């Protein structure tokens, strides 16, 4: 009887493990950037079916990439406090099952985008998965440049949305890519510094390793947030975005830079957390402003 009670999986355990394998929250954030890219890429009228298929295809790709990433890193995840309870290192899921699911989801997502959106969007989605799994993931243990390298596939999803709606890439689409690329740097630098001991224990090379004062990591965060501030104003200068966008982006960018500056100056856990939370607040406000002010 006791064995029966113990062996009954908790209600929702399998669903919780699945959500963790596909990094459901991160994938939802990715979908939000795809939607923003789509909204900005639309020229005249909205094709709601195309939007649904684009979101569906990208969701499959994002879930597949997350599963493949966790399959690849299962041994290292087991060495980090933050990740050791994930389904693979904890032994709740067979690694072959996660690999198969990751491959099927990724292939289905790319196929879906090819069939319903266009080959360019599908190629960008495939490039995102390949770059994320085969370039960024192995380089995490080789070079501290991995954060910059990882920001490339991280910035591609809004471009997938853009190309699905527009069918091509132009300077405006590339500006959107640049905004997402630069935004990730202070965001991930703050995380890397907060969890620097965990990352070092797992063998990940991070800029924050040994940077106890946070000065080096903080300085980088300031540089990238300043670059983000400049790039985020470009749509008002070169494209048809209203003055509301210019002043809104200016206020958001200055606020974000101040948070990065506070982290560089104090190097405290609370300042790093504030930068991390600030980065999470910044992105939806900026993208929302772009969509509304266009």
């Amino acid at each position, binding site marked *: 009887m006791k064995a029966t009670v113990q062996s009954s999986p908790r209600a929702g355990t*399998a669903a919780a493990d699945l959500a963790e394998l596909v990094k459901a929250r991160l994938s939802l954030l990715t979908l939000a950037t795809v939607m923003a890219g789509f909204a900005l890429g639309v020229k005249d009228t909205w094709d709601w079916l195309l939007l649904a298929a684009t979101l569906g295809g990208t969701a499959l790709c994002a879930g597949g990439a997350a599963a493949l990433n966790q399959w690849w890193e299962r041994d290292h995840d087991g060495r980090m406090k933050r990740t050791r309870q994930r389904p693979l290192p904890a032994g709740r899921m*067979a690694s072959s099952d996660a690999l198969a*699911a990751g491959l099927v989801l990724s292939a289905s997502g790319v196929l879906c985008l090819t069939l319903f959106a266009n080959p360019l969007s599908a190629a960008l989605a495939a490039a995102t998965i390949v770059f994320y799994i085969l370039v960024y993931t192995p380089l995490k243990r080789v070079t501290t440049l991995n954060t910059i390298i990882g920001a490339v596939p991280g910035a591609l999803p809004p471009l997938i949305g853009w190309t699905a709606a527009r069918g091509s890439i132009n300077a405006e689409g590339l500006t959107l890519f640049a905004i997402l690329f630069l935004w990730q740097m202070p965001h991930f630098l703050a995380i890397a510094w907060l969890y620097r001991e965990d990352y070092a224990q797992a063998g990940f090379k991070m800029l924050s390793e040994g940077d106890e004062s946070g000065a080096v990591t903080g300085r980088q965060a300031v540089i990238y947030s300043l670059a983000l501030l400049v790039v985020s104003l470009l749509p008002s200068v070169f494209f048809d975005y209203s003055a509301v966008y210019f002043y809104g982006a200016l206020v958001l960018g200055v606020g974000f830079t101040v948070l990065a500056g506070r982290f560089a100056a104090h190097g405290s856990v609370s300042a790093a957390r504030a930068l991390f939370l600030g980065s999470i607040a910044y992105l939806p406000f900026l993208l929302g402003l772009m969509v509304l002010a266009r």
Partner: protein
Amino acid sequence: MNGPDTQTRRANRRLLAAMAVFAVLFCAAIILWKAFLT
């Protein structure tokens, strides 16, 4: 000894398989839609 782990793994395998089937059906639905309704 391995009971709870095996059962949890089985439950996870079933859910992953269901998700994979859903993904394939989603693509199949799109192929059919494109073939017959457009």
